[in-house]
């Protein structure tokens, strides 16, 4: 029986006894001990929470990540904050109980943080509520949650410090209620690798104490586990573990086909936050770093210095491995208000990326200069999206040359040989790829747009989305044509759209000599494994392109 569904936060499956847990407490009916009495109760509860956090910090110091320790530190700083003390004191002296006082202070402070309108800070409001509920918990005489057997926790308002205090070996899985995927607690769960889904509403209390299977791949929790389900779980669990072990064996290996054809497997990223040592060691490089992040969620254009710092961070992290940053693809679905772009009837065919750059040279060159400066700190290449003509590429290269001249005048360092490639994402670019390949240093096929433009299917329109097949021979012929042009001119070609990790197309890509596939990093090992089984001499191209 499927007891509930939710959104997967961290994949995996888990079997355990369900336990409903609320980090919040019911404190109705507590006696008021008078101003002085309540003041003392508050102080001793606050001290108790501080010492338990300090104890947690010491006891688990070796198993907690740097990040998790910092969260504990942030909670400690909040508990010591004079504003919190002032607000609580004000409430206490007006005759409220300690529980009411901390509740009021927590409401006020979290409202203050939420009012900044900044998502990151608003998320910190959850930290305030967490320390408040811990104090309230101590006041209500609540004892700490202790796991004694494999448990799937159905948790409401789960606090980070509660989570960290749990015995990892009994914490099989978690269903998180009413918690954002970007909250501290969600980040910590992911970093601990616990199978988890996010559900809405309120947990079903009757599940407590019953054996459940959490399937965080499908986003389901099954109750009333029957013997055959248990068997199925055990089999799947074994299979998953075995699959994972096989995939893990590809980590650090050279990614190639069975007949030894090398295909670089790179990662697509959209923000510098996605770069971590694990990714750097896993991927052959970054095949597509979307630079829109630096333009969105702000009120004015980012200056050269700001951009330079952000790009440099990523380039440096990847050391000698190549990072390809795409110049801005603002327009269509990604708009920033300050660009002041008009609404368009048909935005996908409208005013976007390089087309904006033609009119706004200043914007384009600001980005190019920042990228050039970052190129001095690692292996950086850039690519220009939405190219439909040679003239556009000429324009972009001219802007790069002007940017270099300006940096030289200003005495700033850059890599004079930084490669400039193009996205092949319009049928036009594929059709004239023989000409473009003489000027570009590499091609990267953006399959999402190539499909939509080739098949005349708006991919955001549900009525026609089913026609947007990346297996259509027309799309594949264009890719093959671009690959031939690239190789005839001695430049590499990559694929950076969704199709890059398509199992059906992988033999085709390998056979036409695609040099690099760039995808969301979670697909890299799977693709490496599939690639290792392909013999390109056995691939029948006619199966793909008719």
């Amino acid at each position: 029986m499927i007891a509930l569904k939710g959104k997967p936060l961290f994949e995996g499956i888990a079997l355990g006894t369900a336990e409903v847990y609320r980090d919040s407490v019911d404190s109705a009916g507590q006696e008021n001990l008078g101003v002085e009495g309540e003041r003392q109760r508050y102080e001793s509860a606050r001290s108790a929470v501080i010492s338990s956090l300090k104890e947690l910090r010491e006891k688990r110091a070796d198993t907690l990540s740097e990040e998790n320790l910092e969260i504990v530190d942030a909670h400690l700083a909040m508990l010591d904050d004079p504003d919190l003390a002032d607000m609580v004191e004000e409430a206490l002296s007006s005759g409220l109980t300690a529980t009411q006082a901390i509740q009021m202070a927590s409401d006020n402070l979290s409202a203050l943080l939420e009012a900044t309108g900044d998502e990151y800070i608003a998320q910190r409001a959850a930290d305030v509520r967490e320390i408040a509920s811990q104090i309230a918990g101590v006041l209500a005489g609540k004892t700490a949650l202790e796991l004694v057997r494999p448990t799937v926790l159905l948790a409401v308002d789960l606090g980070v410090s509660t989570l960290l205090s749990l015995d990892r070996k009994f914490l099989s899985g978690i269903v998180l209620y009413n918690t954002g995927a970007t909250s501290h607690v969600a980040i910590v769960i992911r970093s601990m690798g616990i199978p988890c889904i996010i559900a809405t509403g309120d947990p079903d209390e009757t599940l407590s104490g019953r054996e459940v299977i959490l399937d965080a791949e499908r986003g389901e929790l099954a109750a009333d586990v029957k013997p055959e389900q248990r068997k199925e779980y055990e089999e799947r669990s074994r299979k998953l573990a075995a699959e994972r072990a096989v995939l893990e064996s590809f980590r650090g290996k050279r990614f190639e086909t069975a007949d030894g054809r090398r295909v670089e497997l790179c990662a697509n990223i959209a923000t510098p936050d996605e770069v971590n040592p694990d990714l750097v060691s896993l991927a052959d490089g970054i095949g597509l770093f979307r630079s829109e992040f630096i333009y969105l969620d702000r009120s004015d254009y980012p200056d050269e210095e700001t951009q330079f710092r952000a790009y440099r961070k990523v380039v440096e992290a990847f050391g000698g491995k190549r990072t390809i940053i795409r110049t801005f693809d603002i327009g269509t679905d990604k708009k920033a208000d300050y660009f002041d772009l008009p609404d368009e009837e048909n935005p996908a065919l409208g005013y976007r990326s390089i087309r904006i750059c033609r009119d706004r040279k200043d914007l384009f060159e600001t980005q190019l200069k920042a990228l050039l400066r970052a190129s001095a700190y690692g292996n950086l290449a850039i690519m220009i999206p939405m190219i439909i003509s040679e003239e556009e590429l000429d324009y972009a290269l001219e802007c790069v040359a002007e940017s270099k001249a300006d940096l030289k005048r200003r005495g700033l360092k850059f890599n004079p040989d930084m490669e400039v490639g193009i996205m092949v994402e319009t049928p036009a670019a594929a059709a004239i790829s023989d000409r473009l390949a003489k000027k570009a240093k590499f091609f990267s096929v953006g399959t999402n747009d190539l499909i939509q433009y080739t098949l005349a299917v708006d991919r955001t329109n549900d009525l026609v989305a089913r026609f947007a097949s990346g297996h259509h021979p027309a799309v594949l012929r264009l890719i093959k044509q671009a690959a031939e042009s690239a190789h005839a001119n001695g430049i590499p070609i990559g694929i950076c759209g969704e199709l890059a990790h398509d199992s059906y197309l992988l033999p085709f890509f390998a056979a036409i000599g695609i040099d690099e596939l760039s995808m969301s990093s979670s697909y890299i090992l799977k693709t490496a494994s599939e690639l290792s089984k392909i013999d390109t001499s056995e691939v029948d191209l006619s199966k793909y392109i008719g």
Partner: protein
Amino acid sequence: MTSFSYVLKDPAGIHARPATQMIQQCATYKDIDIQIQCNGKTADAKRIFRVMSLGAKQGDEVTFTFDGPGEEEARASIQAFVEENF
């Protein structure tokens, strides 16, 4: 009284995790009044909620002022931390 100004370079602004460390570091200068100004708002640099509610973002200019005995040394040390981390 002494001060320094800095334009936030970090995409996460001043509210990223190092903020806690910065506040703790400011708190060690017990006799020095340290204020942060940003976007017309002022916050006590030793108070985590005040600092966070400044909502200082990437590209914003923040000004730290130090008032009290040993203010020069405090400024140098906090400025180095801010420039390194934000």
